[in-house]
């Protein structure tokens, strides 16, 4: 593996992982978690087997970052619909589309609609302009990609479906995908803020559904990528959804359990590891 190590590739993976870690750390600190617990919780999420592989590591790190950015910006957008939050939310959806076209497109279509009940009085009954503003950036990115690929015949990076090595689909990795979603399901149910619950449920479901579809019909051992996308959502659940002195313990228990589960599966079944 060392002989195949590509330094620039490793730098890209490291940068994406660092950006994700920094984003989670800032969110945790913003929610009044102390310095060391915030750092420790961020590192627990970053300990993903998906980031280890050079082949799939960059894709997984970027997908993880995109999932976290989408969930965070969606929760912020649901609280207040101002231009800055609209741009961040739309930009996150576009970024997710670029990295995982299937998951990104489904999330772009579903998530803004799910959030409609949380819009303030200003936008109630006047949502056309709001949806247009949110969906504009993802739509432009899609148009640009279609233009580049079909008209200009530009070779685009093969994310992530085409990047999968062709393998026979197997039922076992599908079980791993479902298992890796259990910690997020628990965190979502315990979340006290209804709009954050909606965001987590929707984003998590989109990751789960697209991973299962790809695993069952394309193969390629999606479960590590799926776990990498779901884990940062736990931070969003902890930041928005939990209150009180016990939340630090809850956070460590939940994130440790998630990390333990993922690594146990990864090490026990290496044949279903990263694609």
């Amino acid at each position, binding site marked *: 593996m060392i002989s195949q190590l590509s330094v620039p590739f490793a730098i890209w993976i490291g940068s994406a992982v660092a950006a994700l870690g920094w984003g989670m750390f800032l969110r945790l600190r913003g929610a009044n978690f102390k310095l060391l617990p915030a750092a420790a919780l961020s590192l627990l999420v970053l300990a993903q087997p998906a980031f280890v592989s050079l082949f799939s590591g960059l894709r997984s790190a970027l997908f993880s970052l995109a999932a976290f950015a989408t969930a965070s910006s969606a929760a912020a957008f649901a609280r207040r619909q101002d231009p800055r939050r609209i741009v961040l939310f739309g930009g996150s959806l576009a970024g997710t589309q670029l990295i995982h076209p299937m998951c990104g497109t489904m999330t772009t279509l579903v998530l803004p609609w799910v959030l409609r009940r949380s819009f303030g009085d200003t936008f109630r009954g006047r949502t056309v302009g709001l949806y*247009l*503003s949110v969906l504009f950036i993802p739509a432009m990115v899609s148009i640009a990609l279609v233009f580049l690929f079909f008209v200009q015949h530009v070779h685009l990076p093969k994310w992530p479906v085409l990047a999968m090595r062709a393998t026979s689909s197997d039922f076992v990795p599908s079980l791993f995908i479902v298992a890796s979603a259990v910690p997020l399901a628990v965190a979502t149910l315990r979340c006290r803020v209804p709009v954050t619950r909606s965001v987590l449920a929707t984003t998590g479901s989109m990751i789960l559904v697209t991973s299962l579809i790809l695993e069952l019909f394309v193969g390629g051992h999606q479960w590590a990528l799926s776990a990498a996308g779901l884990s940062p959502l736990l931070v969003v659940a902890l930041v928005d959804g939990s209150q009180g002195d016990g939340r630090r313990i809850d956070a460590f228990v939940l994130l440790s359990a998630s990390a333990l589960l993922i690594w146990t599966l990864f090490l026990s079944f290496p044949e279903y590891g990263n694609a």
Partner: protein
Amino acid sequence: LGMRVKTLDSTTYEEATNGVGNWLRQRTRWLKGYMQTWLVHMRAPRQLLRNAGVGGFFGFQFFVGGTVLSALLNPLLWSLFLMSYFFDLPSIGLLDASRSVSGFALLLGNALFAYLAMLGPYRRGWIDLSPFALLAPIYWLLISAAAYRALWQLARNPWHWEKTPHGVSRMPGAGLIT
């Protein structure tokens, strides 16, 4: 004169033009003004650089000169982009990359402009106006038409200024105050 020009962060309740003809004449006047301003100041570029500084000099180029240039180039880029699908560009002396360049410029430029127009009304709560921002490409073509009218008038009748009639809209100005 040793004085500086600033912009106040305030609201103007100026009556907007309510017809294409009025709008075209108004924009023609504005763009001719931009052209004359650029020409007058660029008669002595070193003096402008001394007076305005480097930042002011380049800001002037982009905001005054660039506004006119982009309006004039817009239909040329559209033509180049559309021609690239019907003609073999290298055979008529144009770069094969012109389709990519013009396409990219059109997509990015129009998208950015439309998006800014889409978000602008939020500050006033006039989000019902946001969907009209999608008409930005057509709006830009009208600006280009005004720019070429202005260029023609600058050459043929530089001292003629087409005034905008006011008091023609149905809604009085007080109705806009929120």
